[in-house]
């Protein structure tokens, strides 16, 4: 079933979504505040048409925690996105329309024009980020023989090693953030500005 303007309007605004979050709200706000946006991207988006953006998300999801705030900042900085947020697990009619293959991956950003013709969709995270994260993760495991193999269950590691591994993986994620954020913005910009 196509998304209509009426269905779209039933979603939460971006600020309403933030207000009802039951977890990760502080980190979400921090991610929104600290994302680095390039002037060229903002100018390109400002010149484009205004878009309605349907967001499917949940507040516990790591990819949503990383990427929904980027969309929110882009909306605030450019004034070109009207966002309505739906919780994935409460809106099966929408979730079934935006499957990532067999998975209910989130976040989903579905972009519509004024007539609610879908002009494109963006799901979960850029493939380039997945690829680089996999490579960097392998490097983290290779950096310390105590970490074992990336494919081995971590519960077999001693607690101190597990803590060191978690810290190393978190450092890797922090280090990758500028690249990951930049890729999200690049893909959204391409999707929005290339559409007729």
């Amino acid at each position: 079933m196509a998304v209509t303007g009426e269905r779209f309007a039933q979603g939460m605004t971006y600020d309403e979504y933030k207000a009802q979050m039951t977890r990760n709200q502080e980190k979400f706000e921090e991610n929104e505040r600290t994302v680095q946006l390039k002037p060229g991207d903002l100018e390109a988006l400002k010149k484009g048409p205004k878009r309605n953006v349907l967001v499917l998300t949940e507040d516990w999801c790591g990819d949503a925690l990383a990427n929904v705030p980027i969309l929110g900042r882009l909306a605030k900085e450019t004034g070109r996105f009207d966002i309505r947020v739906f919780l994935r697990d409460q809106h099966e009619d929408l979730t079934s329309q935006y499957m990532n293959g067999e998975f209910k991956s989130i976040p989903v950003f579905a972009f519509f024009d004024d007539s609610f013709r879908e002009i494109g969709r963006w799901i979960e995270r850029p493939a380039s980020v997945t690829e680089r994260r996999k490579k960097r993760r392998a490097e983290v495991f290779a950096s310390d023989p105590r970490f074992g193999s990336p494919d081995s269950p971590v519960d077999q590691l001693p607690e101190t090693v597990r803590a060191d591994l978690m810290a190393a993986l978190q450092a890797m994620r922090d280090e990758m953030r500028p690249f990951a954020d930049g890729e999200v913005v690049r893909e959204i910009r391409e999707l929005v500005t290339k559409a007729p």
Partner: protein
Amino acid sequence: MNAPVRVRITYCAECGYEPQTLELAGALMREFGTRLAAIELIPWSDGTFDVRVGDKLVHSMMRDGGFPDPTDVAIAIHEVAAG
């Protein structure tokens, strides 16, 4: 059952898998009571939901997909305990 066995549940804390973790742990507590040596809950990341009974990995979300049926884990506990 013979010797009590230890159960380890490694779950993705970033993904919000706490309800499924507690549901499984609760089901095993109710079924086995003092016949388990321990139920250990390990918070992790990366979409993990692994269940180890003794030395045997009886469920892995990466390997098997989804969450395990508590009944299947209980069967695995009986098998491991029986040696």
